[in-house]
């Protein structure tokens, strides 16, 4: 294969008090797809910021060579002029502008300050064709899905004559179908001679698109593996990332033995919810399910299957318009019309989107943990700060939240540690039923294991756990029973013994076309 297009040699980057990168060397060959793997906080994003000029030349040590020339980028613009374009995890599109306007934002086809719309549309159409996006260039970005927005970002990169495309967790927010499309596009671009660097947590994706993978751990490059080589297994990559062999990705757990005769901790009957805006669309359609104490019950489904919508509408009607159904707790019907009622009945919902719905990022760890159950550390409406602090210290130790003090703003923590704070907060509320929505999304392998262990302990303490996840292996590893959903309906119930990825996937894709 061809020689290196990019060499980063012994990169060291320090922030006040922290050494983010202590010694990273990365070599990317011309025309390959190069994956970068590592736990959260390992330094992947920092490395890419060095490469793209976010951290300008001079603020780091070591050399960056692109096409055999030393790079001295002072900002992102400089790196883009050389053909290095980075697409961030959070998309940088303006929702109320059209696709075409977004494509050429800051780079408009214009003469004397006036935009040439003919040329803009022509070029936009051409770029959209290259990324395989069948949308009119004048469509508003807000009106297309996240998957398509991702394609617009790539088209934008192509408009800048990209030679090296950097994608930071490009599929984190996408469903399987969109992910596949995106990965195919990366391979297609590779055929056109564009080199890509892809940061990803999803090992199966890396296996699908990447030629080689560099593993970064604690700010050091550990090794670069040839993905196509037979000895590069997923276990092998994980071992490199965590620095230990990970025989067991899930804690050992003995399947739950249901108590005879006892009513389920939570039972949902005939639950139906309409879409909040589109009043005709049933988002959750006649769903009934049960969860017993000590049991972990999974809910599997593709994007848009209605899992989060089900959970949120049960939890204080925080989603959509309620259209029918009852909730029973230990055999008695309960009201869950508001969040306070749901919490009062011992139900907790741990959101899939911790940054927007789970945490007050500018507030401290201790105050985030105590918020849902302030009454427990308060007397007559007055919070006992010392007790609150002690509670938070307890969780910091038991949950292994990595932070100097409990007064640290949660916004400064890594994803895994933030997730631990969200879990602590809901465990502190002392619920009987925990609904966990994608509790391990976007967090690294080591933290995942810790969170699995916590979930397992919760079940062992007799709590009923509903585990919503898009990652089938984790459902298979953790759950006693797994429900599947598709297009708002419950399409299957699979006991642990019979559950395989294939069985679940078959249920998850069932009825999809029929119900419309």
């Amino acid at each position: 294969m061809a020689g290196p297009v990019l060499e980063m040699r012994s990169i060291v980057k320090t922030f006040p008090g922290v050494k983010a990168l202590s010694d990273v060397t990365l070599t990317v060959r011309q025309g390959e797809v190069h994956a970068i793997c590592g736990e959260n906080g390992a330094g992947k994003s920092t490395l890419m910021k060095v490469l793209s000029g976010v951290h300008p030349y001079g603020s780091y040590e070591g050399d960056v060579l692109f096409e055999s020339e030393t790079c001295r980028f002072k900002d992102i613009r400089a790196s883009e002029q050389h053909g290095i374009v980075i697409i961030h995890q959070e998309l940088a599109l303006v929702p109320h502008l059209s696709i075409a306007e977004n494509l050429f934002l800051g780079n408009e086809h214009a003469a004397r300050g006036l935009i040439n719309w003919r040329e803009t549309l022509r070029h936009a159409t051409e770029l959209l064709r290259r990324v395989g996006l069948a949308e009119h260039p004048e469509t508003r970005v807000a009106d297309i899905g996240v998957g398509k927005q991702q394609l617009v970002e790539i088209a934008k990169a192509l408009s800048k004559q990209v030679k090296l495309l950097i994608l930071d967790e490009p599929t984190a927010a996408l469903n399987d179908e969109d992910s596949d499309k995106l990965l195919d596009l990366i391979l297609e671009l590779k055929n056109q001679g564009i080199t890509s660097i892809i940061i990803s947590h999803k090992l199966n994706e890396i296996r699908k698109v990447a030629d080689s993978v560099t593993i970064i751990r604690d700010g050091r490059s550990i090794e670069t593996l040839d993905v196509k080589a037979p000895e590069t297994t997923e276990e092998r990559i994980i071992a490199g990332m965590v620095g230990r062999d990970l025989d067991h990705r899930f804690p050992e757990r003995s399947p739950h033995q249901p108590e005879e005769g006892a009513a389920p901790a939570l039972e949902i009957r005939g639950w139906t919810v309409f879409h909040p805006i589109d009043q005709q669309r049933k988002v959750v359609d006649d769903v009934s399910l049960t969860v017993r104490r000590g049991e972990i019950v999974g809910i599997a489904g593709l994007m848009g299957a209605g899992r989060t919508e089900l959970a949120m509408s049960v939890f204080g009607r925080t989603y959509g318009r309620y259209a029918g159904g009852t909730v029973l707790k230990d055999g008695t019907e309960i009201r869950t019309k508001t969040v306070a009622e749901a919490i009062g009945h011992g139900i907790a919902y741990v959101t899939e989107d911790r940054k927007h719905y789970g945490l007050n990022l500018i507030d401290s760890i201790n105050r985030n943990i105590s918020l849902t159950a302030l009454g427990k550390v308060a007397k007559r409406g007055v919070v006992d700060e010392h007790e609150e602090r002690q509670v938070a210290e307890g969780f910091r130790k038991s949950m292994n939240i990595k932070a100097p003090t409990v007064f640290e703003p949660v916004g400064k923590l890594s994803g895994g540690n933030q997730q631990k704070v969200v879990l602590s907060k809901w465990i502190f509320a002392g619920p009987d039923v925990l609904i966990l929505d994608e509790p391990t999304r976007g967090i690294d392998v080591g933290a995942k294991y810790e969170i699995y262990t916590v979930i397992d302990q919760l079940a062992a303490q007799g709590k009923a756990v509903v585990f919503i996840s898009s990652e089938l292996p984790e459902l298979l590893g953790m759950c006693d029973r797994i429900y599947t959903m598709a297009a708002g309906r419950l399409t299957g119930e699979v006991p642990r013994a019979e559950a395989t990825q294939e069985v679940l996937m078959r249920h998850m894709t069932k009825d999809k076309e029929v119900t419309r």
Partner: protein
Amino acid sequence: MSTDVTAKSPAPAPPGGSGPAAGTGLLGLVLAGLRRNMRQYGMLIALGLIVVLFAIWTDGDLLLPRNVSNLVLQNSYILILAIGMMLVIIAGHIDLSVGSLTAFVGAFAAVLTVQHGVAWPVAMVLCLVVGAVAGSVQGYLIAYLGIPSFIVTLAGMLLFRGLTEILLKGQTLGPFPDGLQKLGNGFLPEAGPHTNYHNLTLLLGLVLIAAVVWQEFRDRRRQQEFSLDVLPVRLFLLKLTALVAAVLVLTLLLASYKGAPIVLIILGALVVGYGYIMRNAVFGRHIYAIGGNLPAAKLSGVKDKKVTFYVFLNMGVLAALAGMVVAARLNAASPKAGVNFELEAIASSFIGGASMSGGVGTVLGAIIGGLVLGVLNNGMNLLSVGTDWQQVIKGLALLVAVGFDVWNKRKSGS
């Protein structure tokens, strides 16, 4: 008196854990503490600098007992408004109506007492009720009907200004009965033997010092009880000394003139009370939660609408109180009273560390911000700077304060 709460202000990040970072000397400890609470202490230091500068420029006139007393009286109503405004801003809203509302309540008080001869205590209660009603109507529209607070209170600003003029028929109305006048100009009565100082004020100061010391020691003991990290002994003593000294100086200054103004005592009670609520009460926590991340607060079971409603109701009550103080101080209700008060209160909050996006700020910060503006006002008056330049300088002060904050955050953030 407001210094009392300094005891509590640094507590959002009591030193611990990362404490030993900056060396072992006392100075190192102090610096480390400062660095962690740049936002809190930055403005306090700035306030101190402004006071020292103006004291020098005015040849000490700024710190004459009479002037200090005056300074308190002049700024009391803005400070009262700033407390309420801080809560509104922390909750992620804004209130533009408070200036007009103070004028309206002043007019209402004048109509009651001057025209209809209602007894002043009854009139005061009625005024507070009017403020509460005005606040709760606006709060209802904002919280339950979801109309943006900027719009609702902009409408309120026009509406109350108009109602004030209607009520007063464009005239100035006064004078007020003695009891109400005391609210704006009164001092604590003198009692006991003749000394060179005002006895009750001295007594009050001593009680305050005792309370501060007791509170600090209790806090420390509680922290040790829960086996949490405490401030190093030397730093603790330094902090205690500074606090006691501050209270003592203010007490002596006031006691050597006419004593503590009544409005200062009210203000002190408000600062202590609201500071306590915002830090320790469930209600206060919920205000921070909805301002910091509304969806997350909702999903945590916080009754966001109710909290928002009460924040505006509270603002209405405080605006009514401020309105009475202003009217009492001028000894007349005027249709032009309270112009730009909302902007002064908002500026105080932002100088004192509030954030446009909500979720951040302290009651003490609002007071410090208000005092920065107040001392600038007073100092420039003493130097006979024209109101034209005063406005320019106050505008710059707001820019510099918030600019420093943004710069400081960026430096520590990335």
